[in-house]
């Protein structure tokens, strides 16, 4: 065992990692030399720096397997889940540049404040409104039913905020609810068990609603779970457009 580690140490190659450091709006990049390993994610690199080079480095993670959506950062310019991003996949000329997620206030270093993201989730009515109680039967629902399939395509969101960081409308329009919240709202619009369809359509039709999306599709491009918020938002646009004509009648 000890031997194997020594051999690795001898041949160790390093990469240059530039890490954003700072609190609030104040900050700058700092460089670290980090040993390369065969199995190494971006989160491992960040961890290595905190454990070996600079104990004051702040970042956030929890599950380390792509389920909790806590560890997203900007890696070489792009938003990514760092626990599931192998370094070799993103290393650019031996350099790794790591910054906090875009479009959210920075708490410190690589940890961003996600509260605005979740406030909008609620504002978009991304919350189920029951029509039955625990004493009723669980409804029989055909899993192949069209609306169910629509939901299935969009439901596996881990609220990581990556799409939110990849969208320029979010950056430009502080009221814009953003792709993840709207994506969730779309699943609920299709949910036969939900009782707040009209309220939800109204919630996504205001000044920050789905109609502000310009179909940039950065959200689709970067979603680590291959979800398609653009399609969901298009769905909301369609449903609200229908209601637009209905309300007028």
């Amino acid at each position: 065992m000890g031997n194997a580690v020594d051999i690795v140490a001898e041949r160790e190659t390093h990469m240059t990692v530039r890490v954003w450091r700072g609190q609030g709006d104040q900050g700058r990049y700092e460089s670290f030399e980090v040993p390369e390993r065969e199995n190494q994610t971006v989160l491992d690199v960040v961890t290595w720096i905190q454990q070996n080079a600079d104990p004051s480095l702040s970042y956030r993670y929890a599950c380390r397997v792509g389920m909790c959506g806590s560890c997203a950062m900007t890696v070489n310019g792009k938003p990514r889940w760092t626990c599931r991003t192998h370094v070799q996949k993103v290393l650019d000329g031996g350099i790794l540049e790591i910054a906090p997620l875009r479009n959210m206030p920075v708490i410190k270093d690589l940890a961003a404040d996600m509260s605005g993201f979740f406030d909008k989730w609620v504002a978009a009515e991304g919350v189920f409104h029951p029509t039955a109680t625990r004493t009723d039967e669980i409804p029989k629902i055909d899993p192949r039913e069209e609306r169910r399939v629509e939901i299935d395509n969009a439901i596996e969101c881990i609220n990581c905020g990556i799409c939110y960081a990849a969208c320029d409308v979010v950056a430009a329009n502080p009221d814009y609810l953003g792709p993840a919240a709207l994506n969730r709202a779309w699943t609920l619009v299709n949910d036969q068990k939900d009782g707040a369809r009209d309220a939800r359509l109204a919630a996504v039709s205001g000044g920050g609603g789905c109609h502000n999306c310009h179909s940039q599709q950065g959200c689709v491009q970067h979603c680590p779970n291959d979800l398609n918020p653009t399609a969901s938002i298009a769905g909301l646009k369609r449903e609200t457009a229908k209601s637009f004509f209905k309300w007028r009648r």
Partner: protein
Amino acid sequence: MQIERHDTDILILGTGGAGLFAALHAQQAAPEQKITIAVKGLIGKCGCTRMVQGGYNVAVGTGDSVERHFMDTIKGGKWLPDQDMAWKLCKTAVERITELENEIGCFFDRNPDGTLHQKAFAGQTADRTVHKGDLTGIEIISRLMEQVLARPVEKLEEHRAIGLIPAKGGEGLAGVLFIDMRRGAFRFVRAKTVLMATGGGPTMYRYHTPSGDKTMDGLAMALRLGLPLRDMEMVQFHPTGLLAGLGTRMTGTVLEEGLRGAGGYLLNGDGQRFMFDYDDHGERATRDVVSRGMYAEMRAGRTTPNGGVYISMAHLGPDKVASQFKGMVKRCADCGFDLAGGRVEVVPTAHYFMGGVVVDPETRTAIPGLYVAGEDAGGAHGSNRLGGNGVANSTVYGGVAGDVMAADARAMTSLRTPDEAVLEAEIARARHPLTRKAQPIQPLREALMDAMWEDVGVLRDAEGLKRGAARVAEIGAELKEIGVADDNLAFNLTWHDWLNLQSLVEISDVIARAALWRENSRGAHYREDFPETGDLESSYFTVARQVDGETEVTREAVEFSIVRPGETLLKEDEAETLVAAQ
């Protein structure tokens, strides 16, 4: 020391299935009470409930019954479970799953006819596990999180509980001391009732599955408060943890159970299948059996380059594997492994902690005002937890705690006055490293993980356990000498690493002692020097508590309040199992 003070009525620690359910139920039952939910990470985005893959056990399938679910739980726990708790778990799960579907908005997988799809995990005699693909936890926690976010509940995110503070006269719990992690400041929150739902988490082993925020803080706090902890020797190992080498957080993360179920092979370093040397069921044997087989093979030196064994799926057809286990294959691929076509190194990995605070079926503890639910509470699973009973347990008892706390808080007119001496002592404990010279902490964490893995792990004996306890004690002493730079305490992960390690050391010591104390082999606990199960009729469970700074372990007889060994609740004409043989 300046601390911020803050009052509430109902305080909840943790936002897993237990914490979130408690918040919802408390809010529904007593909307006039102020409810505060505090968590080490972000609401709903930490802890293990979110990581649940397989699913949720509940007896709602055709032919299945609460009695059958109960019997499986008792047998799975090798007659050690608290039967009243196990019964309430199985019974209330039926209501809870309906609540999740009808009130919270979860949607679990359906059969073509629209009814719930259920499958059988190992150790179950009916198709009982409700699930959402293999991402059941994300569905449950995301939906619960939305409900809580939308309600008037005070949220203290990235607030780490570090001490349970008793009342001055000792008549109950006064409140909880936190570190507001973002600012690095202390905050004391008083409450009439406090739920501890911090989810245990055996992350003191070299290989472990739970999320990084779980470091036994809750049980360590309970221990310091003098509460009795039961079944502390019971650590469940999952056989197939990913082995990706040192220096990566991927190592230890779980590869789905279904891989073995579907016919995956475990191969030793020489490429030979070995599980049939240990058990007739081969790779399909239960978690504890497979873990032991793998451990024995590894100890015999027939290992892979990183010291584990291989899982190999390729003989089932890479395309088929890739489509059947899409998520798992993608996860491996992201990290550079080819699960569908190649071999992946695996190792048993610490997964779940059956031990916990002694509670009654209403989640009450020995201290008025403190309630415990979820993985922090002991009793429901005994010596082994069935796959699918974990999330059922946390959601069932979280809800129970919310109801009970709401009623109890209503009956109280005032908050308790804290014992300032304990408060000061807890602050001093947390500040201790800030008064020492800064040094790296990780080597010590690794030393602990090695000690626990090697000496208090899958296969145990007296000699090893004693050695393990000594190693843990030494690490604890060394930790006291290690400092953390105090120039900026805001979001200072290194300070929290220190505190994490202290919690882990405190509980590791209890695990080693309890394991040494139990001189037989039950469920997850296997003594090579005492391989027998022992007499079922005189089954006992271990109880550990700290008295004057020393941990004492005693035993208590299991009360067979519902069914005795050899008996069953199933009717005579009922089949042994409803699961078609595989």
